[in-house]
């Protein structure tokens, strides 16, 4: 049962993920890495997807690009609609035309996603020539241009450099250059700054913002860092144990978090702009993906859990325009306007 507002928003979206189920068959049983996740990315927006390990945020991204290895992985249900067509129904040949051209991706570790045996210029040129009918020389010129776009000094020399000749920050710039070289409609960045130092992280985040404006791509930024989300994103989706718990505009999420997990995360972080003697904590640990809790997956760690939470999965409902929450405290409240800000624990 889907909410009419959600249906409308999803129809207008560039990418809409509906009830996605990405499972893995293992000796321990079926791992439901993504289990009924729904959210969408609008044209040109920056959407943050936050979650801890095992939340399914990276598997969702890999599912969009159909990079899930099968076996052991498989799609047990759902749709991924990109520009009106379901990516899960595309053939692998069709997917190859989409990857790198319409949707491209920047990974966490630039050293392991660049080929060490080829120059960076060759690798960017390869992507351009794969998707567009241009001469080798023209593709090389475009590669130089894209390196210039991402702020690499003397790009006409650096195209001939190998990845090992560059620093971590430079390599990640190359990845961004490569990802944007075909002007994709959607850029998926999976923890693009996690392996980098904070001063370099600031450079790369600025770069993603600036180049997005020039190229006009939408960005799906996957991260565990709420600080990065607050500074860069317009909307944010919070994932936990394979499900979406909350989605909202960034201001709303940080100022009036509705889900107890989001509240807990925001309260428990040590912050530069606050001094506290003791941090509130979220008790317990992240559930084992082979033995997910029943009902709401956050209920064993939730201070506000009630009997119903352990039995039934709460539906994703919209208490306010643009805000989506999967929590019985919100779903159970009449009128749907539950004020989560009052629920301090």
């Amino acid at each position, binding site marked *: 049962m889907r909410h009419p507002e959600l249906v409308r928003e999803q129809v207008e979206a560039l990418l809409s993920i509906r009830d996605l189920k990405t499972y893995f068959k293992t000796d321990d049983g079926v791992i439901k890495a993504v289990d009924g996740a729904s959210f969408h990315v609008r044209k040109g927006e920056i959407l943050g997807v936050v979650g*801890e*390990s095992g939340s399914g945020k990276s598997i969702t991204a890999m599912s969009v690009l159909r990079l899930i290895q099968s076996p052991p992985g498989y799609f047990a249900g759902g749709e991924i609609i990109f520009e009106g067509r379901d990516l899960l129904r595309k053939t692998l040949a069709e997917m190859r035309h989409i990857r790198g051209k319409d949707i491209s991706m920047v990974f966490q570790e630039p050293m392991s996603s660049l080929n060490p045996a080829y120059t960076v210029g060759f690798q960017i040129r390869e992507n351009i020539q794969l998707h567009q009918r241009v001469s080798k020389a023209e593709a090389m010129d475009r590669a130089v241009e894209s390196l210039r776009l991402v702020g690499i000094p003397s790009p006409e020399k650096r195209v001939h450099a190998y990845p090992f000749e560059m*620093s*971590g*920050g*430079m390599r990640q710039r190359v990845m961004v250059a490569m990802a944007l070289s075909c002007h994709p409609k959607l850029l998926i960045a999976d923890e693009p700054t996690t392996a980098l*130092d*904070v*001063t*370099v*992280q*600031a*450079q790369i*985040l*600025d770069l993603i913002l600036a180049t997005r404006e020039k190229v006009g791509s939408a960005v799906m930024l996957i991260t*565990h*860092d*709420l*600080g*990065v*989300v*607050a*500074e*860069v994103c317009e909307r944010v989706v919070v994932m936990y144990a394979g499900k979406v718990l909350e989605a909202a505009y*960034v*201001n709303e999420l*940080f*100022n009036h978090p509705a889900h107890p997990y989001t509240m*807990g*995360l*925001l309260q*428990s*972080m*040590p*912050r*530069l*702009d606050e*001094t*506290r003697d*003791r*941090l*509130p*904590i*979220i*008790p317990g*640990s*992240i559930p084992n993906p082979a033995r997910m809790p029943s009902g709401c997956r956050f209920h064993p*760690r939730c201070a506000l859990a009630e009997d119903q939470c352990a039995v039934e999965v709460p539906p994703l409902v919209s208490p306010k325009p643009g805000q989506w929450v999967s929590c019985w405290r919100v779903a159970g409240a009449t009128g749907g306007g539950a004020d989560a800000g009052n629920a301090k624990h």
Partner: protein
Amino acid sequence: MPGTQNTDGGRKVLLAVDRLVKYFPITKGILAREVGRVHAVDNVSFDIRQGETFALVGETGCGKTTTGRVILRLIEPTSGDINFDGHAINRLGAAEMRALRREMQIVFQDPMASLNPRLTVGDLIGEPLEVHGLARGGARDARVKELLTAVGMQPKHMFSFPRELSGGQRQRVGIARALSLRPKLIVADEPLSALDVSIRSQIINLLKDLQEEFHLTYLFISHDMSVVKHISDRVGVMYLGKMVETAPKDLLFAHPRHPYTQALLTAIPIPSPGAKKDRIILEGDVPNPINPPSGCRFHTRCRFVTERCRREEPLLTEREGGHQVACHLDT
């Protein structure tokens, strides 16, 4: 002179690091001819007082981890003095050093990589007790249970293997193991970086509780300024092998004086949308430590660079309130 002041607050200096240098030779050919040196730690001095948490911060390659390891003599220093509780550590023989190690322990970044996967939690925590001949058999097990309780786990966990535990629990085991010998000093090298956000606050609170309960002194090595602000009493900022600034925590975060510290602090994303700040974006990358820049090592990326900075190395000098800065500018 840096490294010798010990008057502040009347608390005794537990660890004094004086002009510590560690170069790693780069060798070439079958004769291992030395062709260069990585200047990992270059003339670093600081003190840690009993019961305080001194945070050593900086980015990749700044020398903070090397400093921590040299202090424990897991790596031998090239030169300099390390004085721990009245012992000149760098002059001790192997047997004396082993005895002293009981009092200085380390907690590593990645508990999965630092705990032997074939040992049970009981053996992991009990091993140091047996190595140092402090307890065995039933006495050992009793102590292991006590330690597990101290770090917020249950005695039954002593029969578990590391793979059966969550990341947070593994780090608790790493901490229990470090505590088992009742050390005075714990070097915690990025103990939170491998943990999930919702687990970090649990471990931060645990470290604070244990410090109080067991009167521990921490050398807390981290790149995460938000955590450092929460946990430390004093902070030392390193850049490319040099200490560029040390100060009591409140002073450092309120009035960072070194241009590098200022940039480092503004680079950290604040989890509060719309919180406008003037971010100082550093240009370029950290230079190569094999061939560090002349004069001030930060001069290649500094907004305020002058001719003097390129020529002359600034020394760490005392400013008001126990603040020390190595910068030619009168910031």
